């Protein structure tokens, strides 16, 4: 049986894993490769690295970091943040990443999904999508609006329609982040996750809002999400990957326990 995946997300800037704290800006919490190895040894199924300042600084993704990770980590990992074109995608994949994630760029230039899928295969292309709840309307029939730039910029795209379009264009997976739930630690947005995971045939990763294992149990049992993404939950030592996996396993969610 296909297992549900536990994914840890590492936001990286200036070669350090960082975490945004409200009103305080960003705090560095460790070395990406060291942290990645520690999570792998503790049973994480997949890793996501976001180069969070590449885009703002108008520079390519830190490929040295990607190469370093690839040398040390023998499970799948994806890289996002600051992808500008198919050349950037190629660089990241050749550096050893399994998948590359596009978010704002795909909204601006949806054709990038088609091009990436054609050149590298659908399985390499992850659509990162940030969505927020809005009143249902002709413009947003699903009641969720796509936002970009980490939630700072609204778009005219309906979340469900965009997910379906991205699938059609060749995205192999969707990493779905709820802007409303993100950082609240009160659970994933299961309504949003159900909506999108019911609406597409490609795998959906639930993201935003995890604060305890029961939140992962909920989203993985109540929706068709195939993976749940966590960040601060494990970065601060309040939870470990292995303890989350134990909890999922005890709740009869199929997870990989033989790492």
């Amino acid at each position, binding site marked *: 049986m296909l297992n549900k995946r536990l994914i840890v997300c590492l936001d990286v800037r200036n070669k350090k894993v960082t975490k945004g704290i409200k009103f305080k800006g960003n705090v560095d919490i460790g070395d990406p490769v060291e942290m990645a190895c520690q999570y792998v040894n503790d049973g994480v199924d997949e890793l996501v690295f976001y180069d969070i300042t590449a885009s703002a600084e108008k520079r390519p993704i830190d490929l040295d970091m990607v190469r370093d990770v690839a040398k040390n980590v023998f*499970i799948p990992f994806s890289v996002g943040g600051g992808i500008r074109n198919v050349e950037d995608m190629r660089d990241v994949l050749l550096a050893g990443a399994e998948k590359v994630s596009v978010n704002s760029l795909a909204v601006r230039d949806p054709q990038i999904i088609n091009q990436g899928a054609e050149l590298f295969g659908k399985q390499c292309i992850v659509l990162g999508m940030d969505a927020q709840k809005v009143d249902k309307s002709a413009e947003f029939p699903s009641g969720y609006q796509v936002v970009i730039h980490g939630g700072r910029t609204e778009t005219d795209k309906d979340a469900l329609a965009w997910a379906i379009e991205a699938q059609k264009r060749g995205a192999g*997976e969707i990493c779905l982040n709820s802007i409303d739930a993100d950082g609240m630690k009160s659970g994933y947005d299961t309504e949003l996750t159900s909506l999108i995971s019911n609406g597409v045939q490609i795998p959906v990763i639930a993201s935003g809002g995890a604060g305890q294992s029961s939140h992962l149990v909920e989203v993985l049992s109540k929706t068709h999400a195939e993976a749940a993404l966590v960040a601060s939950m494990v970065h601060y030592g309040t939870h470990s990957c292995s303890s989350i996996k134990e909890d999922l396993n005890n709740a009869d969610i199929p997870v990989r326990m033989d790492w």
Partner: protein
Amino acid sequence: MITVIDYGAGNLRSVCLALESINVPWTISSNPEEILNAERVIFPGVGAAASAVKVLKEKGLEKSIADFISSGKPFLGICLGTQIIFDFSEEDNGTECLGLIPGKVVHFNFPEDEKKSVPHMGWNQVNFTKQHPIFKDIDEASNFYFVHSFYPCPEVSEMEMATTQYGSINFTCAISKNNLVATQFHPEKSGRHGLQLLKNFSTWDGTYNA
């Protein structure tokens, strides 16, 4: 020394880095003669079947792969590398493949009332139907990493070494024929079990008695 065949189809680096981590010497080649003379070969790949077959033909690698396999030296196919040694793949509206293993590669088609994502992406159990030297020290039903939308259907059931269950579909995820082994999953991305499989391959003499 393991020669990894380079035909422009993705994740060579992952395979080489995995070999490096277990201290197995490797080299990359797209030269037909070098490949034919290699000690042992890994034929990896991600991407689409049609363009992969086209590139192999253009580079003159089709024959050297076939000849290498006939030579009796150990050969490991991975993912797309596994799929395109079959006769035919449904991918890209039907693709004639290398025809080294009888059978075809088909798309995951689930009944309408069964909600399963395609690609089949993630960790799934590999259930051994045969004992094989490359499974040495790996437990039955260990989890390996998969990412694919098509799966192999060997015509000769004796070639099946392991199966995986995805929803209602039970498919062949590893095959063997004499000195050839081939997996649908990615050992280079499958943590310690995958590294063990690669280590086993690096010391396998290429003989197998079912």
